[in-house]
């Protein structure tokens, strides 16, 4: 057994070295993509097979992934890659469909001025190919499934909990599920019809939709109102996803009643959404993700000088922004290019250390 595995590994690595050294890998990759753009030897890609308008500002994209897709668990998300005017951009989207199907779907709300969501809405139609990352995240139903569940969402935060509900329905496992959703108006409720339909067919599903234009209920989230609707909320295994303000209040309520351990959360916006900008570039915290070290900047020097001053040895050459030897992936944070004045604040952008100065705390791939 051991030796068979050894031989198999040796064969695989030899084959990949051979293919790379003889440039056969890129020829193969090229022809595979020429034949069908959704196929690739190096990653996950998916083709859009349907686009569904859910509400005025929300669309679902039904995708057929290639063989590299390894499936997902209900509640997980995937890093979607699109090419906007020649530039590859990535955003996370929760998978809204139930697991175990050949097709998956993501449901995207158009954020005003949002780069990726607007682009998906305007330019992506049937036949379009996008890149995907493997399904990730631990916002998933526990195994075995707890009997009493509370799925709590607001706005587009419904997507991961919808996947959970669809999963439970497909497995006929809806025993006692309270599904509470907050939206601005009735017309803004994503998956409204399907939810009604599920509630009609599953006795164990209690559907509570709170909308601001409803005269009987308070506007938005209200602690007392929730406690009245779901009196046993603190004992339920709860899954929460929604706008930051809603999540903060729910978290506080659960903490107040000592039920935080029952609460699972998914945030669509990375926790520190906004790191303060430091105009001088001084006293900035630079985390180096590979070496696990950190450097605090002193004075106004370039990142290359700052790192060198702290004893790091990043690769460099011209030291004036021409040769790109010092090119480095910036995972997060904002830097300014001293030569051109360009500011980079998108996550995972490549920057040139020798002509960049930090403008916020940073994480670099060094």
């Amino acid at each position: 057994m051991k030796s068979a595995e050894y031989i198999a590994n040796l064969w695989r690595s030899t084959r990949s070295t051979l293919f790379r050294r003889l440039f056969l890998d890129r020829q193969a990759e090229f022809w595979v993509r020429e034949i069908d753009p959704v196929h690739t030897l190096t990653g996950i890609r998916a083709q859009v097979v349907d686009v569904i308008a859910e509400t005025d500002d929300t669309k679902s994209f039904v995708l057929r992934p290639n063989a590299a897709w390894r499936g997902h668990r209900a509640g997980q998300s995937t890093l979607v890659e699109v090419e906007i005017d020649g530039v590859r951009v990535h955003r996370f989207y929760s998978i809204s469909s139930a697991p175990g199907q050949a097709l998956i779907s993501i449901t995207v709300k158009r954020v005003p001025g949002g780069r990726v969501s607007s682009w998906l809405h305007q330019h992506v139609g049937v036949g379009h190919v996008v890149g995907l990352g493997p399904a990730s995240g631990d916002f998933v139903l526990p195994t075995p499934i707890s009997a009493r569940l509370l799925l709590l969402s607001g706005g587009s935060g419904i997507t991961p909990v919808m996947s959970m509900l669809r999963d439970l329905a497909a497995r006929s496992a809806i025993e006692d599920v309270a599904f509470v959703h907050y939206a601005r108006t009735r017309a803004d409720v994503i998956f409204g019809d399907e939810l009604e339909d599920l509630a009609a067919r599953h006795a164990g599903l209690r559907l509570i939709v709170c909308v601001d234009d409803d005269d009987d209920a308070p506007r938005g989230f209200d602690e007392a109102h929730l406690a009245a609707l779901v009196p046993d909320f603190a004992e339920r295994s709860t899954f929460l996803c929604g706008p930051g303000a809603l999540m903060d209040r729910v978290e506080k309520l659960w903490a107040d009643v000592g039920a935080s351990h029952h609460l699972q959360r998914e945030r669509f916006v990375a926790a520190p959404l906004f790191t303060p900008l430091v105009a001088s570039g001084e006293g900035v915290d630079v985390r180096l993700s590979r070496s696990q070290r950190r450097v605090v900047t002193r004075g106004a020097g370039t990142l290359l000088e700052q790192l060198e001053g702290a004893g790091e040895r990043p690769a460099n050459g011209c030291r004036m922004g021409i040769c790109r030897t010092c090119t480095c992936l910036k995972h997060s944070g904002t830097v300014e290019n001293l030569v051109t004045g360009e500011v980079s604040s998108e996550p995972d952008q490549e920057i040139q250390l020798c002509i960049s100065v930090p403008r916020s705390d940073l994480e670099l791939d060094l």
Partner: protein
Amino acid sequence: MHLGTAFGSGAGSVMRPGPGTPPCNSHGKKEVSMTHQNKTLTREQADAFGRELLALRQEVVADLGERDVEHIRRIIRAARRSEAAGRVLLHVGIGPVSFVLGTSALALSKILENMEIGHNVMHGQYDWTGDPDLASQRYEWDLVCTGDDWRHSHNYEHHTFTNILGKDRDIGYVMLRVVQEQEWKPVHLAQPILAALLALFFQWGVGAHDLRIDELFAGKQTSRQFARRARPFLTKATWQLFKDYGFFPILALANAPRVALGNLLANGARNLWAFAVIFCGHFPEGVRVYDQAETENESRGEWYARQLGGSANVEGGRWLHLLTGHLSHQIEHHLFPDVPASRYPEMAPRVREICARYGQSYCTGSFRRQLGSVARRIGRLALPGPRRPVAAKPVAHPAAGRVASAWIGRRAA
């Protein structure tokens, strides 16, 4: 700074003495071939000049988009298809016609891969796309020179120290005397033959360039350092030889000799072409060299001025630009090494206009003129002759350290 006053006969602007300053096309007005005298720029003027070029760069960078990605992907598609067609013709064809067609298709794909794709991608011209296939620091090309050696010797050394004697090892590739400012040595008597050999085996010259064999002989590097430098090159070269003269011929069974010969000729054609293009870029008449003292505390603007003074363009149509990887626009390439090369033709008239306003000559000519000029030089400079001093810069330099505060130039380690 107001340009009108900056370039009057004011105190700052000095006419370069320019011994034997060359006949290079003057810009702006009609095509006049005249002895052009470059104005020597003061640091302030050079920086203003550089800022105008940077503004032009920013304008183009802001406009980069789908069109540019489409362009490079189209070229990649052409290169891959032409490689496949070439191999099929060589492997299964019979007779001379399919041999010639197959070899040509293979040579074309190698030229595109080397010039328009590999060279430009490795400069970071497409890093902004975020496409891993176009990432400068990871690209590996179908050439015996390793991507890493190239990024060091070319992107860093050649592009930073362009035409500085003793620092730019691309001047004559350390073996040839291509400018009169180089010292004559008896070995230069053989340089017409050396140059022909270098042209035929150019990829080996490029591949071994960063090993610094000359420094090994001069005792400036130890044999251990040399071995460490040589290992990646030797590994890559072995694989390349195996690919071209082992793997593919064996795959062709009875057609093996034909395939091996086709590969040899395609490599040779690419070598000759690349040599011609590169030597036309820096060594025709009209291009000047610099000495180390003069460029010691150079500002960013002076770097721009040197890139212009040290490069020469070749005029031609779209196909010439494509096949040279747009190195026919060597000047624009040296001013904007990380801007997608297919933008150089549209930038060129603007660059010429800026150069004209700053009294800087812009060296351009037909392929025949530039190549002829280089060939004559190689012949002429083979013979003993006095070393010409580098045209020294008459403007006094401010002390080091001032540069950085003004406009980020090269910063010391």
